[in-house]
């Protein structure tokens, strides 16, 4: 378990909903509802945080949600209890997943790989616990390819890294480097916020 990352997110848990539950969720609600509507089968939701995404999950599923921070999970529990289905919450580090190989049909992430310390290593862990041809679906913000937005994301990162995410991660490329086949990349805001659909190898 990465103690430094856990401590960072434990600290962030107190103010996370204040910063993230209003504007960002209102802004992204339509896109997230559509994104999560693809959930089916055995689903792992990585970095469940305080559970802000849970209301967007389609009802009637059995979902495993993990997070590195016990404080985040405490805040997520009421939202998991309110879900019309079953959500099991577990404390776990993406770099050290305690699941058998091929356990899940799908893995979902939401604004997660901006802050995973070793993104390619984390993605390789996800590939292991997905069944062959299993699906990785990500709602992420990344760096931009386009000037001047690319410069801004690089300039913001040293500051944003202190409190949580990095703003300039090449997440689509990282997914490819981890051995996934990219199926679709859909922009949500500029080329910064996007959904990525990828498939584990057969």
């Amino acid at each position, binding site marked *: 378990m990465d103690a430094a990352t856990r401590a960072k997110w434990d600290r962030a848990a107190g103010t996370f909903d204040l910063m993230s539950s209003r504007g960002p969720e209102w802004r992204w609600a339509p896109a997230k509802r559509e994104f999560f509507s693809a959930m089916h089968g055995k689903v792992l939701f990585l970095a469940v945080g305080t559970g802000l995404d849970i209301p967007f999950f389609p009802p009637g599923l059995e979902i495993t949600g993990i997070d590195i921070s016990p404080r985040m999970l405490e805040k997520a529990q009421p939202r998991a209890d309110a879900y019309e289905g079953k959500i099991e919450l577990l404390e776990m580090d993406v770099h050290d997943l305690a699941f058998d190989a091929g356990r899940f049909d799908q893995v979902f992430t939401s604004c997660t790989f901006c802050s995973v310390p070793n993104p390619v290593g984390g993605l390789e862990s996800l590939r292991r616990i997905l069944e062959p041809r299993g699906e990785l679906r990500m709602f992420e913000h990344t760096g931009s390819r386009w000037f001047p937005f690319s410069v801004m994301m690089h300039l*913001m990162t040293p500051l944003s890294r202190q409190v949580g995410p990095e703003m300039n991660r090449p997440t689509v490329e990282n997914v490819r480097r981890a051995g996934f086949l990219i199926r679709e990349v859909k922009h949500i*805001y*500029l080329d*910064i*916020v996007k959904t990525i659909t990828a498939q584990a190898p057969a």
Partner: protein
Amino acid sequence: METRPYFVLGDLLVNATVGALVGLACAALIGPSWNMWLGMFVGMALGMAMALVLSLGLFAVLLGAMEVMVPAMLTGMTAGMVVGMAAPMTEVSLGDGARWGALLGLVCLVVTYAANAVLLRQTTHS
């Protein structure tokens, strides 16, 4: 592209406010004794720093950090550069600086919305 009035009006308010404050600050700081290029670079750096700080507070909470920060930093950069470059060449009052900054903020927001509209069409499949 964003069409919900709450967000469109909020984005307009953020960019006009950030632009006006950056323009005001640059008009106050940079004067006729400055070299034009130095004024432009100082204005740009000051504008981006001010935009980052201003957009991280209430605006980000109410409107979403990403959609606020990106156009606001573009506004800060542009308003800072233009007012910072103009102030050494001609007399720029505080009111002029604020007005130019606010106007440039609205232009930057339109540019960002247009870029967003183009990029949203670029879904890639394999």
